């Protein structure tokens, strides 16, 4: 099947044939050796053998050009990594999780081969989610008009994941230079592919997509794989559209070393797949067509064995990561404001609304940095600029290349932001993660993945993204237009979380987010967008550092710690107490939840001795629980009463205004709790 194709056993140069044989041989030696490390309790506890995928994996690596391309291998892609240039030492360092592992110093699971320095990306174990990253980086390649393609590789069963559909749909719609390779070995662990989808060849499920070519090849055959991938690259470059290559492979061994395939595969099948061992086939061809003698191949095999032995010794001598390093690279250092060091100002003049503060800052930062982008559902169409018009006028000023709509696919919005930020470290991306925070849940997988990146790569990749979300209730929005989701979001290391309650802080925090490296989660209390209560004067260059709470009202008798919508209720309650009870209440607006300004909280607690934590989210498992726990841990001896909390009931938010009122916190509830506490 190689006629008129670039590569064939007869026409390919001997030097190339030898290079391939060396790569395949050393790869298989490592693949076969990997389980021994587990047996000897050295490491490599996860190993997904690639034997049977040799043809396509060799070809992916040979196709990959580290100068122009981006490669997203999956956990079975050992030969892909070797063929792309990883040395046997580098493979072993990753396998046994050594500090000098180029993927990320042993932080990520074994068999997740990567070398970010060469654009061989460090990908998740959440199988197939890197399709979104490949699409994202391809979007950047297209926008910056650079040559090359993004190559995503995965098993056929992971195509069942919804985000893979989203990725392929996006690549097709945006006509992006992405090569999706499906390595089809017939199984997802023990699940036969007939249980995944109706067609045996899952790539054919995408035949109705526009701007997309689908090519099938024999992934067990070196020449067919090489020719197919060359054809795929040519098609992508000439037609500026993505390609799917489905490579038929066999899985000679179990899924991984925690799987026992003889529980679900009979002897006939196991012999059948062994009969099509791609390396054995390639070796037979070299001899049959007299390109190499058996003696020559034996000599190469012996040389490769020595190379692997040498790599093994280097691996065993390599240092382990230090336990002291665990807090390194959780999140990059943020931008530090020089002028507004504590995030306050003395600006006088007209008050600007919260929404104006956001809109003007986004525009100012887009003018300041040409490598800024924003997308999301509904962010830009004619005169519309977001569901609440936060981005109004941006597309008109900055163009569709930088300000654009996304499909209703939150995982895609988030995942492609991750991917696009891989293109270079200068890019700053803002996304509207969903129309409302309530709809962000489909993006959680991509979000969680993104929180890991900086740590997992040991600082080699920082996703520089700000996720904006219209949050909270008080608009009669019911269960899906009222959620405050920070209680969930703040459980993930690797993201900063901010929740301003005034226009100036909204502007200042947005500027700091957009100038910082790393991942930011920006919650916008949508009930305050146009509220006169939240309007303030805003200096044009205002910046608010992360982790700096702001005292919005000073007091001596009680501290209320709050953020977002409830800040205004707390201020109102504090005013009433002052007027009616003669006590003074300090209201501390956290602004940032991560990093959390516990110094400010503790300072205030030590002054007042009483503390009420108020937020809109549910009290049960809400973020206030963390604050309360830290106070009792660090300032117990200063307390004159229990740490009390006010927030939502442990129910969804009802649509009927009577229900909403009963569920969400309000000034009266805060007043009652504050007065109870003042009684101590």
């Amino acid at each position: 099947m190689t006629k008129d194709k670039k590569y064939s056993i007869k026409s390919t140069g001997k030097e190339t044939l030898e290079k391939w044989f060396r790569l395949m041989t050393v790869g298989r030696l490592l693949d076969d050796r990997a389980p021994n490390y587990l047996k000897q309790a050295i490491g490599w506890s996860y190993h997904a053998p690639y034997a049977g995928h040799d043809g396509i994996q060799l070809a992916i690596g040979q196709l990959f050009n580290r100068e122009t391309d981006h490669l997203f291998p999956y956990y079975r892609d050992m030969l892909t990594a070797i063929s792309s240039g990883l040395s046997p030492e580098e493979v072993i360092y990753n396998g046994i999780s050594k500090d000098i592992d180029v993927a990320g110093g042993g932080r990520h699971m074994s068999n997740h081969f990567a070398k970010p320095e060469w654009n061989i990306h460090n990908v998740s174990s959440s199988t197939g989610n890197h399709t979104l990253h490949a699409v994202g980086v391809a979007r950047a390649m297209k926008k910056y008009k650079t040559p090359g393609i993004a190559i995503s590789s995965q098993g056929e069963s992971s195509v069942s994941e919804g985000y893979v559909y989203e990725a392929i749909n996006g690549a097709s719609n945006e006509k992006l230079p992405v090569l999706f390779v499906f390595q089809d070995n017939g199984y997802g662990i023990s699940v036969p592919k007939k249980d995944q989808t109706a067609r045996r060849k899952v790539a054919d499920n995408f035949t109705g997509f526009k701007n997309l070519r689908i090519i099938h090849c024999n992934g067990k055959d070196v020449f067919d794989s090489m020719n197919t991938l060359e054809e795929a690259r040519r098609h992508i470059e000439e037609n500026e559209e993505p390609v799917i290559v489905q490579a038929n492979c066999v899985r000679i061994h179990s899924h991984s070393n925690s799987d026992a395939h003889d529980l679900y595969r009979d002897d006939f099948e196991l012999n059948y797949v062994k009969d099509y061992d791609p390396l054995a086939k390639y070796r037979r061809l070299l001899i049959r067509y007299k390109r190499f003698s058996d003696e020559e191949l034996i000599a190469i095999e012996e040389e490769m064995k020595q190379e692997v032995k040498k790599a093994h010794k280097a691996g065993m001598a390599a240092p382990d990561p230090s336990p002291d390093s665990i807090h390194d690279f959780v999140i990059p250092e943020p931008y530090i404001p020089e002028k507004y060091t504590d995030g306050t100002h003395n600006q006088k003049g007209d008050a600007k609304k919260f929404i104006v503060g956001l809109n003007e800052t986004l525009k100012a930062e887009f003018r300041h940095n040409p490598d800024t982008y924003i997308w999301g559902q509904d962010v830009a169409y004619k005169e519309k600029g977001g569901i609440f018009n936060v981005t109004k006028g941006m597309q008109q000023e900055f163009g569709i290349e930088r300000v654009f709509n996304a499909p209703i696919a939150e995982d895609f919005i988030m995942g492609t932001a991750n991917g696009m930020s891989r293109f270079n470290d200068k890019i700053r991306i803002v996304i509207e993660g969903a129309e409302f925070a309530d709809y962000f849940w489909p993006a959680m997988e991509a979000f969680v993945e993104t929180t890991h990146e900086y740590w997992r790569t040991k600082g080699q990749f920082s996703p520089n993204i700000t996720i904006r979300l219209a949050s909270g209730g008080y608009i009669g929005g019911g269960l899906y237009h009222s959620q405050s989701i920070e209680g969930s979001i703040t459980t993930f290391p690797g993201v900063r979380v901010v929740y301003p309650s005034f226009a100036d802080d909204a502007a200042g925090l947005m500027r700091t987010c957009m100038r910082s490296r790393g991942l930011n989660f920006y919650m916008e209390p949508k009930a305050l967008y146009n509220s006169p209560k939240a309007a303030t004067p805003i200096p044009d260059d205002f910046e608010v550092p992360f982790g700096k709470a702001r005292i919005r009202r000073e007091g001596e008798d009680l501290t209320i710690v709050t953020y977002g919508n409830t800040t205004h209720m707390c201020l109102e309650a504090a005013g009433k107490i002052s007027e009616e009870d003669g006590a003074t209440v300090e209201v501390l607006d956290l602004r940032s939840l991560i990093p959390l300004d516990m110094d400010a909280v503790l300072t205030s607690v030590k002054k007042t001795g009483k503390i009420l934590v108020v937020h809109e989210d549910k009290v049960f498992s809400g973020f206030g629980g963390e604050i309360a726990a830290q106070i009792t841990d660090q300032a117990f001896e200063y307390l004159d009463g229990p740490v009390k909390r006010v927030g939502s009931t442990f129910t969804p938010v009802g649509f009927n205004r009577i229900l909403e009122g009963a569920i969400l916190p309000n000034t009266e509830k805060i007043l009652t709790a504050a007065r109870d506490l003042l009684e101590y």
Partner: protein
Amino acid sequence: MKKIGIVYSFNTNKTSKIAKRIADAVEGTAKVEMINVEEITAEQFQKFDNLICGTATWFDGELPNHWDEFVPDIEDMDLKGKNIAIFGLGDQKGYPENFLDGMGILAEILEAQGARIVGFTSNEGYNYESSRAEKGDQFCGLGIDYESQGSKNKERVNAWVKKLKMEFK
């Protein structure tokens, strides 16, 4: 009739049985020579003007290794004037999307080198979804399905050989 070369893998079970059955049916009309495709040379293949090739379909529609590894040689051959009949083994129930694909692929390769493919048969009586061996309402050879229609093998082989006797020279 000139001597017929029957080419297939000797390491197969079902394909070998059918090859022998065909050889028995041909006996008396022409001499036959059985050749193992795993060891065949280009010269051996080209010495026949009448050939019968047997192949299964592997995986989701592939030629078995033993044929695939001979393809680079075939691609350098001039097969003009050669009459080649193919029998294919498939599983229409288990693999309805790729029934007899191996036979279709082999026919395409041989035809591209100038061979005249003979021994087409009707696809009536088979139940599958798609096949690379399908040419209109015919297969480009004899379709054998041990898994679900094994009882028809004898009858199908005999009818096919009868047809070949007229189409071979």
